[in-house]
């Protein structure tokens, strides 16, 4: 059984009495879905041509204090009864997972990958899973995966009459080339925003795009995955686990190397964004975007409470959610790309149409964005609309593959130097790893004094400058790196 991303093994015991009326007792704190297993298991056993006990019998689910949920216990319960009936011992170090159909077929359950990894870590050597989920479980090394088509096949396998072949281990090799959905070469002009994207990718920074409707903010955001390095094996497994838990893992290609891109609509609820559910929380959008990109379009339209809930995961890369059934933690280390209009009507700053918003309305609008969330976004850039008649003459951009090479190079420098991306550096390590040349320190301090930068803002600019230097291949943070980083701070208004 799964509690968030944690697997808890359940021991299923069956005891068949010598006498009494036919009665099926299921004990061990079973929730409704598990209690219903009695009916499914009875039909499945009978329809598989197996013998159903003719006396009173008991199935116990241990540990008894853990509330059991989910239909994945159907298969182990049926197997326990069948083996007890056949007076055979359970197979050693084996685990079973699967829902039963009335005809005895084994059906898909969510979270097979998570369960398989957990079971391996508990020392199990063999796992029986629904046949359609075998490719998921086969991603786990050091575990024999037996794909189960039907209850009868499983029981025959266990009784030694007919063998099922184990599924082959299934770590698809890293492809040479990953076809991204969108490429920077398709974006005409917008060099400033593209540079901001490169810096954001290069150091794992969060990014705000501000500009009128139709300026290409969404397009730019969708290009970010194309300049990020492909997922590492460990990262891809983490992404696959979360998808497995949600039942969203495609069976033909369980391991996906492209980074996730999630773009929830601004009407999303807090539970939808950070995770939630009735008894135990399921992962939300931020965990679906783990190791990828979370794109929030129309940032000012999101409910304030929803945005506030983003603060903890933005800092820690994890989110823990408590519901009545307990507390679960999910990873949520994503790159945030937010987009906003400069004012409520959206046309502020546009050459072609005049903004009709009152200064008061603009003030209110921008104040909704400001504060703690904006303070956590390292890079802010305004995106101007390229007039249609100028589109043709705007140069095509560099292809994403070239930008990605620089990004990979810069990221490698960071991992070798500090074992983490620049965006995750604490101020102490920043001082140690990103020494400022005297000129750059003076510039940064002058700006801070002039614009009233908070300590957090000061260090954010410093981190971005570290990334600019890494993209440059420079060990030292030079003045022009600091200046570029400050150029990406739209929120600092001159006093």
């Amino acid at each position, binding site marked *: 059984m799964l509690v968030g991303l944690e697997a808890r093994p359940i021991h299923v015991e069956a005891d068949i009495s010598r006498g009494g009326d036919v009665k099926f007792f299921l004990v061990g704190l079973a929730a409704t879905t598990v209690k219903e297993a009695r009916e499914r298991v009875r039909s499945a056993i009978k329809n598989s041509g197996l013998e159903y006990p003719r006396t009173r019998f008991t199935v116990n689910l241990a540990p008894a204090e853990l509330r059991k949920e989910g239909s994945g216990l159907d298969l182990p319960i049926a197997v326990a009864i069948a083996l007890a009936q056949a007076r055979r011992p359970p197979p050693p170090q084996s685990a079973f997972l699967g829902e039963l159909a009335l005809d005895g077929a084994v059906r898909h359950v969510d979270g097979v990958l998570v369960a398989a990894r957990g079971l391996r870590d508990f020392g199990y050597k063999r796992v029986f899973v629904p046949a359609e989920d075998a490719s998921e479980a086969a991603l786990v090394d050091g575990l024999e995966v037996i794909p189960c088509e039907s209850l009868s096949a499983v029981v025959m396998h266990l009784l030694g009459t007919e063998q099922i072949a184990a599924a082959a281990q299934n770590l698809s090799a890293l492809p040479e080339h990953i076809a991204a959905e969108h490429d920077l070469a398709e974006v005409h002009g917008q060099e*400033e925003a593209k*540079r901001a994207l490169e810096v954001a990718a290069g150091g794992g920074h969060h990014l705000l795009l501000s500009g009128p409707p139709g300026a290409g903010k969404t397009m730019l955001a969708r290009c970010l995955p194309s300049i990020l390095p492909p997922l590492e094996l460990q990262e891809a497994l983490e992404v696959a686990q979360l998808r497995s838990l949600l039942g969203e893992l495609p069976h033909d290609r369980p391991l996906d190397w492209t980074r996730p891109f999630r773009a929830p609509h601004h009407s999303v609820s807090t539970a939808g964004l950070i995770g939630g559910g009735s008894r135990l929380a399921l992962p939300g959008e931020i965990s679906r975007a783990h190791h990828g990109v979370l794109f929030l379009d129309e940032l000012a339209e999101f409910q304030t409470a929803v945005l506030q809930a983003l603060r903890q995961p933005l800092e820690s890369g994890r989110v823990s959610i408590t519901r009545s059934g307990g507390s679960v933690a999910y990873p949520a280390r994503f790159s945030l790309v937010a987009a906003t209009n400069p004012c409520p009507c959206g046309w502020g700053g546009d050459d072609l149409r005049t903004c009709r918003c009152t200064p008061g309305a603009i003030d209110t609008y921008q104040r909704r964005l400001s504060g703690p969330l904006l303070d956590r976004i390292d890079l802010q850039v305004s995106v101007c609309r390229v007039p249609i008649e100028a589109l043709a003459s705007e140069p095509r951009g560099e292809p994403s593959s070239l930008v990605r090479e620089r990004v990979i190079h810069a990221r490698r420098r960071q991992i070798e130097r500090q074992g983490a991306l620049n965006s995750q550096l604490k101020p102490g390590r920043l001082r140690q790893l990103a020494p400022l040349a005297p000129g750059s320190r003076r510039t940064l301090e002058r700006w801070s004094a002039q614009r009233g930068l908070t300590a957090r803002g000061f260090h954010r600019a410093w981190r971005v400058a570290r990334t600019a230097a890494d993209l440059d291949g420079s060990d030292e943070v030079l003045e022009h790196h600091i200046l570029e980083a400050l150029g*990406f701070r739209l929120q600092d208004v001159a006093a």
Partner: protein
Amino acid sequence: MAIVGSRRPSPYGEAVAEQLGLELARAGVVVVSGLALGIDAAAHRGALNGGGVTVAVMGTGVDVIYPVAHTVLAESILAAGGALVSQFPDGTAPRRHNFPARNFTMAAISDVVVVVEAAEGSGALITAEAALDLHKEVMAVPGSVFSPLSVGTHSLLRDGAGLVQNARDVLALLNRGGEVLDDPLATPQTLGFRLRPERDGILSHLSDVLALNAAELARKLQLPVAEVLGRLTALELDGAVRRHQGGYVRALRRGKERA
């Protein structure tokens, strides 16, 4: 003399309003404006910097400062011997329909109304119309033909409003000319910045009114956008450029340093 205009001017308009306010105040003219954001505030500020007297005609009760951010400005106006004037009873909150009446009053107590940057349908144009009805002089400062903020002022000029290029144009109308004054449209290079040659190249491409973004500049200068962005930030630190509407413009206003 009233100086009115957009509440969201370009840096150019703000600089002109402040410079006009300053020089007219120095010449002994009482500068009247509406205590609003943008041009109004710049005109008041200029007059105060010029050591002059300025009058704020308010659309609220005199005890209700609107916008609140101008509380300090209102206090300085009073401290410098100026006045806050209102036709509305104390405690009147800002109401949209009160402002046209305020604009009429502003025209009524002034001899000349100078409009600096007004988009189509701007409140400043109501003041100008009121001034015409009251047989007062209306003058306007020209702007860029690309800027929406020039639509109102240029249509006034076409209809016969006096052209204002500097404070002397206004003083001449008031028969108070004679003093030699700074040219309000002086270029930033004359403002006493010490510019590094590589930064000067950027400045000469920038406009006072229309914002240019770093990408456009980078293309004109054939430089990487990261470098241009850095140089612009350096210029911004020096106060030579300002961010405006998603791009950059030359900063004309040097406030007290010029005063």
